[in-house]
């Protein structure tokens, strides 16, 4: 998810976790044995150190990829053998060349290919292989599960989990304790909510690494994001049912105390309501 209003608005977020948050200083956090969360609030990725090399995920940008490569070198001398893209958006997938140069194989969901071809970018390394449904990537002593839940935030999102750990990598479907970007250009709100429900109902995990934000968050942060989307969609739907115009919804949308504390609420709630309005009135 794109955070183009980060920084200056942060101080308005009240939860304690936000007060001490350093937005831009990248750091490595081991979230399970051999599984690392790397990045800052602006963008975050996962990398996995196995007995036979490293599996990295989203390189983000040439600069970030170089920084992440250095961070990996602080943990292991092993080469990066795979790079897995979480989804197609440029704020996560650019800059992979440094890993390509050391021989890494790039993987994405096959639906990303259409986007990559339609919207070429000089800083993008095209995937070498694609997956079309739930898959497993085994390297050395670890297996990374690649899970596909269908369209949601874009239509090629992979959720990942190192087998034997209780940590998921969920890029952009949830930014912990944050509302979504109001614009939601290529998002399918209904399918997104379904995906969140399926993830919530899925056993075998208790924490997750998001594509932005704090290094690791509890499952409850996903549930909160689900409740936010349910509340937003219900409010807009009820408004339409009672004859409210988009203008009325835009001016009056209000989801209550729990959600007002979420990061980005004030900035994005009106646009989010507008997006949902179009979802219910235009079928998209």
């Amino acid at each position: 998810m794109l955070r183009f209003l980060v920084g200056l608005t942060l101080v308005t977020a009240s939860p304690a976790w936000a007060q001490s948050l350093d937005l831009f200083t990248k750091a490595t956090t081991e979230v399970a044995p051999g599984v690392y969360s790397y990045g800052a609030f602006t963008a975050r990725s996962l990398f996995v150190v196995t007995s036979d090399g490293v599996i990295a995920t989203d390189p983000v940008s040439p600069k970030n990829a170089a920084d992440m490569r250095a961070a990996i070198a602080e943990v292991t001398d092993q080469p990066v053998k795979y790079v897995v893209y979480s989804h197609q958006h440029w704020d996560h997938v650019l800059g992979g060349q440094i890993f390509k140069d050391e021989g890494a194989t790039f993987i994405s969901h096959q639906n990303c290919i259409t986007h990559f071809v339609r919207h070429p970018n000089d800083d993008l390394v095209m995937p070498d292989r694609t997956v079309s449904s739930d898959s497993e990537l085994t390297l050395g002593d670890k297996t990374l599960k690649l899970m596909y839940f269908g369209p949601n935030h874009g239509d090629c999102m992979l959720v990942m989990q190192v087998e034997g750990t209780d940590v998921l990598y969920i890029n952009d479907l949830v930014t912990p304790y944050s509302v979504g970007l109001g614009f939601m250009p290529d998002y399918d709100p209904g399918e997104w909510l379904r995906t969140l429900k399926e993830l919530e109902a899925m056993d075998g995990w208790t924490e997750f690494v998001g594509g932005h934000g704090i290094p690791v968050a509890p499952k409850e942060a996903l549930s909160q994001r689900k409740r936010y989307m349910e509340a937003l969609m219900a409010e807009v739907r009820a408004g339409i049912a009672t004859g409210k115009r988009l203008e009325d919804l835009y001016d009056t949308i209000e989801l209550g105390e729990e959600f007002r504390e979420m990061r980005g609420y004030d900035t994005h709630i009106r646009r989010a309501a507008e997006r949902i309005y179009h979802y219910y009135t235009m079928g998209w």
Partner: protein
Amino acid sequence: MTRWPVAAGAALAVLFGAMAPALSQPAAESSPGISTPFGRLSAVTTDLGDGLYTVSAGGARTVFLVGDDGVLVGDPITPEAARAILAEIRKVTDKPIKYMVYSHQHWDHTLGGQVFKDEGAEIWSHEACLVHFYRSPHPNVVLPDRTFQIKHVLDVGNAKAELLYFGPNHSDCTTFLYFPANKTVHIVDTVQPYAVSGAGGLMNDSYPKLFVDSLQMLEDNVPFERMVPGHGGPSAPREAVTIRREYQQALLDAVKAEMDKGTPNDQVAKNISLPQFKDLQGYDQYLTANAQRIFIYYRIGW
């Protein structure tokens, strides 16, 4: 904190076609009143010659083509509008409705096709619309019987319509419906003549960059002299397409240049000004929102 200079009510007005007062409505040649959720609207038909007619109803605009063998009709719009459109067709001809062609998937154009299906119409859309129709089912959307990919010609006897696809623009399944006999192309929503991008400026599922390519391909490959839009007045000259393409390109260039200057993210869209396009409908209201959409395109590649 960003505050959008958007009167969202105007967005709704755009959505339902109140945006183009500059394109004066012709004198009503016929106007059976119909009720819609948006008030009582009339179906107004304009004869464009060579068997081609355009009808405004239910907040949008469609076309129909009358040939020796039957009739081809564009978007049904809404069930009420579709019944009014059929009544308008029946004032001109009693020939069968052979084909109905969807312009794209959005519900403000695609509801009510059952009216024409019941008349025996074979329903067409671009194949990429199918995904949308299946993902977002609606009881008043009739699924297409046939789809095409690049180009398909439908004829109703002597009169022909070309279904043309030039890639994603306003939607990823937009059909440009071209009537070669009188060099007229029906372009729904991708070009609203002499207007910036409306519907609040969000262009949520639009393809900001391919949009330009799409219109350029149309201009390079199709010798159209006028267009019939999907909202507002009956027709506009070819230059309306060119101006819209130039506005889109100027917007892309301006946003990219602003980002390349290192302008802070939340300031980029606010800094955009395109005075050469200030006379376009909606410029004051939607320019910043249009620019914000372009900014997002350059950030996430979508």
